[in-house]
């Protein structure tokens, strides 16, 4: 079985277990304020890390290329409250134009 398949099946099982356990565990569990706070912070850290790694590295090397321009445009789009779709498309168009130049 290829790594991709393991990723697909493993992530699916992990997510289902996480979801289903919410319906099994008594409500009082996991409602410690500090735990709730950490739970809101984890996605912030992971998603930010993904932005950085996907923009400035490739195969474990630091690389500056057309992607950073695309992400910079996305940042501008977000700061003027553009809808999510515009954010993603504007990044793609910017990066594609630079790549083809």
């Amino acid at each position, binding site marked *: 079985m290829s790594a991709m398949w393991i990723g697909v099946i*493993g992530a699916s099982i992990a997510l289902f277990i*996480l979801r289903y356990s919410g319906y099994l565990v008594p409500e009082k569990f996991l409602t410690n304020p500090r735990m709730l706070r950490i739970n809101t912070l984890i996605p912030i850290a992971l998603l930010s890390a993904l932005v950085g790694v996907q923009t400035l590295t490739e195969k474990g090397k630091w690389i500056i290329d057309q*992607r950073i321009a695309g992400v910079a445009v996305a940042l501008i789009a977000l700061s003027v409250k553009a809808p999510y*779709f515009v954010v993603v498309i504007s990044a793609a168009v910017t990066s594609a134009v630079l790549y083809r130049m």
Partner: protein
Amino acid sequence: MSRVNRATASQSLSVSFAVGLYGIAFGAAGIAAGFSILQTCLLSLLTFSGASQFAVVGVMGAGGTALSGIATAALLGIRNTLYGLRMAPILKVQGWKKVIAAQITIDESTGVAIGQEDLGVDAMKDGFWLTGFGVYVLWNFFTLVGSLGAQAMGNPSAWGLDAAVPAAFLGLVWPRLLGKFERALAVTALVIAILLSPYIAAGLPIILTALLAVIFGWKERA
């Protein structure tokens, strides 16, 4: 689910369309990362959690192992457990309905349900089911559209997909950056992950930033 009130129905449907449409971006990202159309679509059907799905293809597309892809997806998915905790006493589901409810427990279904609180428990239930099913159907349909489209396009860089993926992550994290504290965490995580990338296996720099979130959350005096 007898007679759904209009406010709940229209909110559920508009959220479903808005979110479902982003399935195109995920479908394209899956192909760009080297996953097949079938694998990309199965991620949407089975994993069914936007950020976690993007994490699997993002981490593995960058050369990370399956394990680090799964771990990142799971860390991002912990919040779904809390949504389940919140929804269980409202939905009061048993047996196979509990399995289905769990599968469609996501940011949007929980968010719309909680948004109906003033309209009563029935409206909360309706909001949950309508939004959950709505997003499920549309997200999967548009994943297929996006993956077929990307397959036809060929080289992902020539179409800017290489920048669309980090932009998609940026769009997901942006609304969560509510204050200075959150922004400080975001910037620290971003910088640390980039700095670590050449030195440790792909995927690990991202997982390690979860630890950073724990440290930040622990030290913060609320």
